[in-house]
């Protein structure tokens, strides 16, 4: 019975795949050329890299809602925390880190060398996003990677609580973005995230800086929250 059902799923997937392939090969060429529209307005966007122009200017509201999604995901993970009462209490301090085992010393040395370089590269990526590949997301991912490396090397404790500094840091970028959106929408003759002429480049850089810090904290938080539960579980069971 199980085998027959499995086979049915595979056959249905193959049929759907054939239909998708047929639809793609039969697709007429598009009459809307978004790339040309982006290129025509690129000078007014405040940046010279088209992907950044789309992300932070032409379709800035997509990015705004995406950051909200990330924040909601972090909140959702907090609600799944094992020790519900302890998590959100402001006074809770995590226990001090134990002395590292010998095999971690090499990793700690590596982390101490690499993490400053990663932070430097994140800063470069943030700045480079205005005119070439790079930007807030890649920079934030590097910062989060630095956080993961520090945690694995035993230099950064996992999040067993969600302290005020973390709350403030993970919401700052989003708040600034929302403020910019509200200000541009409220301005006379303004539309949502339509930056005033001449200010676009500066505003995009400020928004991206805030997003890098907050997204880096949120992405690192995804890992640090999950690794906290892992160590909690093994501690209580042993």
């Amino acid at each position: 019975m199980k085998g027959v059902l499995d086979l049915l799923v595979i056959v249905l997937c193959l049929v759907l795949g054939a239909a998708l392939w047929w639809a793609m090969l039969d697709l007429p060429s598009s009459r809307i050329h978004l790339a040309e529209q982006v290129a025509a307005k690129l000078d007014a966007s405040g940046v010279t890299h088209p992907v950044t122009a789309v992300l932070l200017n032409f379709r800035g509201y997509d990015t705004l809602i995406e950051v909200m999604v990330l924040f909601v995901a972090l909140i959702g993970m907090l609600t799944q925390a094992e020790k519900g009462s302890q998590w959100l209490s402001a006074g809770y301090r995590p226990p001090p880190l134990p002395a590292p085992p010998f095999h971690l010393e090499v990793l700690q040395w590596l982390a101490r060398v690499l993490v400053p370089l990663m932070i430097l590269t994140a800063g470069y990526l943030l700045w480079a996003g205005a005119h070439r590949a790079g930007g807030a997301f890649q920079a934030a991912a590097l910062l989060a990677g630095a956080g993961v490396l520090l945690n694995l090397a035993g230099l950064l404790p996992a999040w067993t609580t969600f302290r005020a500094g973390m709350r403030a840091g993970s919401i700052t970028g989003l708040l600034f973005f929302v403020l910019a959106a509200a200000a541009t929408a409220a301005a006379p003759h303004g539309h949502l995230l339509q930056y005033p002429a001449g200010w676009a480049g500066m505003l995009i850089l400020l928004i991206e800086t805030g997003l890098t810090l907050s997204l880096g904290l949120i992405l690192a938080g995804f890992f640090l929250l999950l690794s906290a539960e892992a160590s909690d579980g093994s501690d209580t069971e042993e």
Partner: protein
Amino acid sequence: MTSALIYALTGAALFLIGVAGLILQPHLLRKIIGFNIMASGIFLVLVGLGQREGSVDPVSQAMVLTGIVVSVAATALALALARRLLDLTGKMRLPGSGEGMPGKKPDA
């Protein structure tokens, strides 16, 4: 046939590989992997179809960049939920699935 169209067709295939994995594998971590492969397939279709006439399309690239970041958030939330289920039930599979297979050992 441009190479972008080849990648779009590959994306459709990857999407369905992910769907099959999501349905057929009882283990929740496998389901999460299948879900990520589905997402990668969709991203390939978006960019591949957008660029199938050979020109680079920054709009679809920006959308996919957004999508990658959202998919890691979804993965993290799914892992938190799966871990909660593991702590509550001791199993990493959905209630009611995989119970009727005595010969099959759970993944190590």
